[in-house]
């Protein structure tokens, strides 16, 4: 972790999986699918079954999004420019669960059709751009991220305990999709992808800043650019693919860590993607000594976002203290006029920390300057195609400017993706 970070927690994370509080509502979020315009297949009040398609991507109708639980659609709202805001499903525990289906997964076409039809395709993300891949595209390689990106994230070996066969069968299915290698990136230890043929390779990354991020794995093993694309996928999504192949029942459970200074018992809990964080953390929040409210982040303290729902790609929930309301300091006479909260990013002072936190063989200061002025061409020349938002979280925290470089990067990437 970065030295001196105020998110250091008092109680260490207990790597024990617990069932956690029951979750009544789950949501499919537009925040996870930027730029996607849905065509809804259900309406408010409809009953849906687990694994039933609820909407498709308007641009690629083959990409199907399914309900992670059986229940009733409580809310289906669109955001600006007909993007998805949120589709909320209220779980009905007594409702009929779907029976097992037989899925074919012996050829590349079978696997592709299966992933698309059962809503598992959105687990894949392209690099460059960090978007859900087009249904007909093929990458050079697939990266399975089975590393914890910070000490408070779930330990992948523990989270996969008991699901190893499913994970391995998921890996085999992914290997069918492409002609290139499937890299299984892990922290040092026993190879969880051993003896699966020479195209499924275990790679080991020692703990350290950013070494758990897919971006740094890809940079080390298969750097991407305008002409070179890879896909990345999380280990729990691979296990979900395997579960569907092995049992025929779609599995949308997700093991997440519940951490942060305000977590009363930091541990791993088993829940669903998109779970309501209010429900999940109802009895987990430690009261603060100064009475401040807690804020719930979906994701790590560095890259997470304040949210009411667990993000599709997140494996961590962080409970932080909200700052006490700032007292109005009237008085101070004339000097009060010169004390304003910053409304825009400050200067970039080229400190040594910038280079250390960025990595990626990118000259930090020229790159951050290119991002701050939105110079897509310069940023792409310097290597922004290798990055997504999470890779810039650490550098945003140490830069003097206080700018959110992740958001600036997304702006530049969207511009480049349009031209590509």
């Amino acid at each position, binding site marked *: 972790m*970065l*030295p*001196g*970070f*105020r*998110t250091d927690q008092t109680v260490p994370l207990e790597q024990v999986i617990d069932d956690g509080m029951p979750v009544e509502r789950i949501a499919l979020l537009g925040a996870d699918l930027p730029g996607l315009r849905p065509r809804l297949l259900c309406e408010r009040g409809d009953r849906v079954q687990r694994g039933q398609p609820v909407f498709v991507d308007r641009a690629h109708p083959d990409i199907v999004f399914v309900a992670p639980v059986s229940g009733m659609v409580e809310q289906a709202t669109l955001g600006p420019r007909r993007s998805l805001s949120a589709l909320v499903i209220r779980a009905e525990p007594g409702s009929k669960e779907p029976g097992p289906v037989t899925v074919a997964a012996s050829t590349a076409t079978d696997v592709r059709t299966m992933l698309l039809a059962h809503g598992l395709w959105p687990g894949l993300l392209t690099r460059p751009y960090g978007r859900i891949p087009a249904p007909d595209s093929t990458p050079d390689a697939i990266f399975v991220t089975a590393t914890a990106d910070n000490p408070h994230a779930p330990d992948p070996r523990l989270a996969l305990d008991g699901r190893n066969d499913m994970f391995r069968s998921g890996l085999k299915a992914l290997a069918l999709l492409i002609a290139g290698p499937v890299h299984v990136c892990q922290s040092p230890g026993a190879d969880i992808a051993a003896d699966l043929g020479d195209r499924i390779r275990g790679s080991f990354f020692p703990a350290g800043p950013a070494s758990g991020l897919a971006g740094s794995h890809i940079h080390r093993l298969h*750097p*991407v*650019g305008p*002409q*070179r694309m890879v896909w990345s996928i999380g280990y729990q999504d691979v296990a979900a693919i395997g579960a569907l192949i092995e049992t025929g029942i779609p599995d949308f459970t997700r093991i997440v860590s519940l951490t942060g200074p305000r977590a009363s018992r930091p541990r791993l809990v088993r829940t669903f993607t998109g779970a309501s964080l209010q429900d999940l953390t109802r009895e987990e929040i430690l009261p603060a000594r100064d009475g401040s409210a807690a*804020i719930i*982040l979906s994701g790590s*303290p*560095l890259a997470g*976002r*304040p949210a009411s729902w667990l993000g599709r790609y997140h494996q961590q929930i962080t409970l*932080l203290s*909200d*700052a006490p309301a700032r007292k109005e300091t009237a008085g101070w006479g004339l*000097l009060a*006029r*010169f*004390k*304003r909260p*910053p*409304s*825009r*990013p*400050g*200067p*970039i*002072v*080229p*400190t*040594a*920390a910038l*280079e*250390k936190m960025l990595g990626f*063989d990118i*000259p930090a*200061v*020229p790159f951050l300057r290119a991002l*701050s002025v*939105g110079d897509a061409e310069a940023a792409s*020349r*310097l*290597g922004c195609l290798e990055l997504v938002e999470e890779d810039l979280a650490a550098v*945003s*925290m*140490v*830069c*003097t400017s*206080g*700018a*959110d470089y992740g*958001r*600036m990067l997304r702006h530049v990437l969207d511009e480049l993706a349009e031209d590509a």
Partner: protein
Amino acid sequence: MTGWLLDPHRMRQRAGWTPGRVTLAQMVALAAPVGVKLVEQGMPMASVLVAALIASLIWELAFAAIRGRSLTWHSAGTALIIAILVPPATPLWQVAMAASFGMVFGELVFGGRGYGIVSAAAAAAGFLVFSFSGAGLSGSSQALALATLPGAALLLLGGLVSWRVLVSVIAVLLVAGFMQDGTSGLPETFVAVAFGLVFLIGDPVAGASTQLGRWVFGVLAGLLIVVFDTMAGPDVATAAIVFASLLASLFAPLIDHFAVALIVRRRRIAHG
């Protein structure tokens, strides 16, 4: 552009450098040299310091009021450096003029600290030497050089001065000094350049900002010191350091441009 700031919870967690903390660190690093200088030169030095402080703060206040920004207090650090560089016998109005020029044209017209291209203190010292006949800059002393060391260590630890710049400047001076008169004069040379090296040439916002560029920038600054130096023997004129810093800073963007071109080329070859 609006809305590019970190969200409030991450803004609060920021433990790295903020503009305010950078200013504070620089002031702490400057405390010992200023103290030494005050002890050495007494009241005249104190009045120079006050004149420089008032002039720079007035300009910063004026720009903050016009632009509707908050005060950064960075001008106080600049004033401290100016006070150390200026000899105590200088008329106070000349000190005030020099500090005003340095603050306004060194950084405030560009938008403040971190946006300019030269070090404001170097601009002020350069202005003083050029504009007033008979005005010079005060030399260094052993005590001042020693007092610079803890501050230099602090800035190096915090990453606010690049060791690459310091090492390459010192390497050039070593070679030049060795070629001139052997090893005998080296300690004297270091005493003369220590302060200017850390606080003028080492200024992170005025130097090159790529790792490779910092080596080149340091070598260039070192060579310029050797070229501008008017003093006979191993001693180095403070003015030489000031002008070397100014000129090297002007070349920093060019150096960075070529360094970036090299890095891009290397990336293209490595990544296809």
